[in-house]
């Protein structure tokens, strides 16, 4: 159940203000043998750490005391300092998989999510999936996206040439994938049902997330502030 170490040690960042959850995340992440794990508790510490190290994998709490996890996510995605030149894999640490802010994070480019307090086995398998490039999705998320499509919410960006009947800019193929997942099919099953490859399905899911508009990110951050979960970052 362990991963072969990379040529250079993997740099892993955990940004989590709750100490117990941070230590649980650390346990889950130790599945990557030989990795260097950095644990910080605030956005400020995370940013300063970013300046010093090139991060390969980041686990980011969605609700941080001194800023928005999503802004940090954007900063991480914008950086490209690590040796391979790719931006770090970012996984959000969240309570629910249908959290609005998780949705916004997925739209902003988050590669996956961990559920707080779930078993370390599950967390490890999610992390592995994220590192492999598998999109994070569940039937509940698929249903939420379909709901947004159905009610014509403006949070889905419109693409030119999209099929009008399928509404809100998703292609018929993407809708098919979402519907199958909403019924409980795994990504592998979706691929075999539709007769495509698993990679095709993964990229279709990623395209759906990419269409989650900038608008929703801003809106989610606003909501978080109003709910009193965050202060404005300095």
């Amino acid at each position, binding site marked *: 159940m362990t991963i072969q170490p990379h040529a250079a040690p993997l740099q892993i960042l955990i940004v989590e203000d*709750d*100490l*117990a*959850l941070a*230590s*649980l995340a650390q346990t889950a992440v130790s599945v990557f043998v030989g990795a260097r794990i950095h644990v910080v508790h605030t956005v400020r510490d995370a940013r300063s750490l970013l300046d010093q190290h090139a991060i390969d994998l980041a686990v980011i709490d969605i*609700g941080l005391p001194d800023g928005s996890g999503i802004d940090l996510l954007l900063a991480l995605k914008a950086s490209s300092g690590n040796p391979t030149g790719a931006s770090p894999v970012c996984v959000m640490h969240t*309570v*629910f998989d*249908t*959290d*609005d802010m998780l949705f916004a994070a997925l739209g902003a480019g988050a590669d996956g999510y961990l*559920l*707080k*307090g*779930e*078993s370390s086995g*599950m967390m490890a*398998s999610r992390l592995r999936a994220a590192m492999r490039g598998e999109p994070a999705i*569940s*039937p*509940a998320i698929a*249903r939420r996206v379909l*709901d947004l499509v*159905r*009610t014509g919410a403006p949070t889905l960006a419109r693409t030119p040439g999209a099929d*009008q*009947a399928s509404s809100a800019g998703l292609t018929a193929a993407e809708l098919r994938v979402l519907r*199958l*997942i*909403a*019924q*409980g*099919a*795994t990504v*592998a*099953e979706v691929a075999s*049902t539709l007769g495509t490859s698993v990679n095709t399905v993964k990229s279709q899911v990623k395209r759906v997330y990419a269409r989650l508009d900038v608008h929703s990110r801003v809106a989610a951050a606003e909501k978080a502030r109003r*709910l009193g979960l965050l202060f404005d970052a300095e």
Partner: protein
Amino acid sequence: MVLRDEDLLEEPDYLASWTAQNAFFARQDTLAIIARSAQVRVDVLRRGTEAISGSVMTRARAVAALPWTFWLQMLIGAVGLFVGAWVWSLKPEEWSARFYALTGLGLMLAVDASAVYGVRELALPAPLFRWLSNTNHAGGALFSGALCALFFVYPRALVRPTRAALLLPLAGAWWAINALYLTPDQQWSSGMLPAALAITLGASLWQWRATRGDPANRAVLRWLGATVLTSCSAIIALATLPVMLTGAPVISQGLGFVVILPMYLGIAVGLREYRLFALDDWAFRLLFWAVAMAAVLLLDVWLILAIGTRGAGAVAIAAVLVLTTAPVRRWVWGRFNARRDMQPVHLFRDVVSVTSASTDADSEQRWQALLNSWFSPLQIAPVAAVASDGGERGAHLLLHGRELSVPATPVSNALRLSYANGGARLFTPHDVRLVETACALLQIVEESRTALSEGMRRERVRIARDLHDTVSSPLLAGLRPAADDAIDAARVTSMQSDIKRAVAEMRNVVTGADRAGITLANLLADLRYTSVERLVAAGITVQWPLGALQHDAALTGAQRHSLTAFLQEVVTNVIRHAEATQVVVEILHAPLCDLVVTVSDNGRGFDAQQVQHGDGLNNLHARASELGGHVRVQPPTAPHRGTTVTLTVPRLFGAAT
């Protein structure tokens, strides 16, 4: 020669007997000859004063001096001819258009002829006058005959058109008989138009029977009937009847022809099938208005006769009557329309009940049932895409009102309704407005429900998140490795496993807060996803059919929680203890039936004696009884045939709506 009142008679037909008419023409002739001489001597006698005598020079009347009634009648004749010719030119091979053109011709002949002799200043030479009078009768005969023939072939051909055309020579014969003075008196000729109308009425009734089940033609018939009935009633009331009864018309004949014109044009509208779906509505309004006016007029006449005033007094009474009966008319009109106008409260209630169904399929069904209750169409069919209707977004009519297109709503696809009231009527613009209002309401209600449930969900999420943060954190703290070796290792281990289970439970409760109000189908989808992932990760293949549950149902939070825990426990058992390579899951839930969940694996099974398999089996029984059902765990029938766990929950789920 002493002049008499009747010398100025506008229409010789007002004189009933032939002798009177002949005398009239004779006098006309004499007067005409006198008038033609250059100078005429005129004596005016007034009672009580001296006679005044003088000579007047005669001159031909200038065309510009002709009165407006002349030009009006000429115009009516021209319009009649033009409209008739126009309708005929659009469908020259149709007999209905031909008959209609003939009525136009007849109208023109009748009106133009009567225009000439109607506006004469004093007299016309008898031969000319008789000729004009005969022309007028000929036009009337042609008009009557063609009108009857028209109603025998339109909207449905009741007899062969050539047979219907026989009415024309029949009318011609009547005219000829009259022209040769073979009938006892003038009344016979005057009776032609009323007779024609009676025949038309009979033909209309026949048409009514023939158009049963044909809403389009029925609509046309209703319109034609309404226009002909009102116009001809007006003519009879204002012209023919008074002449028959008292010998004098109420208004001048010229103005009487004006009343024919609307009827004439109305028939053209019917022939052209213009705005077919609105014709019913117009026909109804026309009849209502006509009846109302007639009632007011009768009341007026009665009052005037009873009170005995004339002139200004009569006008005043008429005005007062019109004003005071206006509210009465409005009330009656409102009562007539109330039966078809939907009360806003009822509409809103119906729409809300459509959106408040627990599942999408139910909502769609209720929407269709609502449309059914309003229109009773022969058919309601879903429509794949809206684009084929030329891009129209709202509700609209198709095929002259035989079909109604209903746009897509938040609860259903676009629909097409066919043949309202089982084919008895057409869809009207009123129906379109009702559907559009309903769709708009649906949109609003659905949006507010979504917003409300979103708000409620977020509130739950916030509460659950707070709960999680405040409760699970201390629990998790207990999971940190013990720093002090002095503590009993076994106790620590058991504490840790307790805490892990507590956290897992907490996760379930917390997730439940997010998923409250979930339906059975969605819950099973969630469980399927996580279970398949866990099993596949453990190297076990899964056969669990995808696809819609036979019958969905809403779940309470407790039911969701119990079912989730049950399935998770079963999967955990398979992964940890069964040593299986394959799992088959089957879920049955038919309407009004039990929910049956069956999980079978091909592992080593378990020994029925080994009940102390942790609390695993006890847990399963506990969950099952929480759901009000029971679980049966079947040991393998042979080694490596695996275990089958069957959960049966009675109709608890089916009751939830």
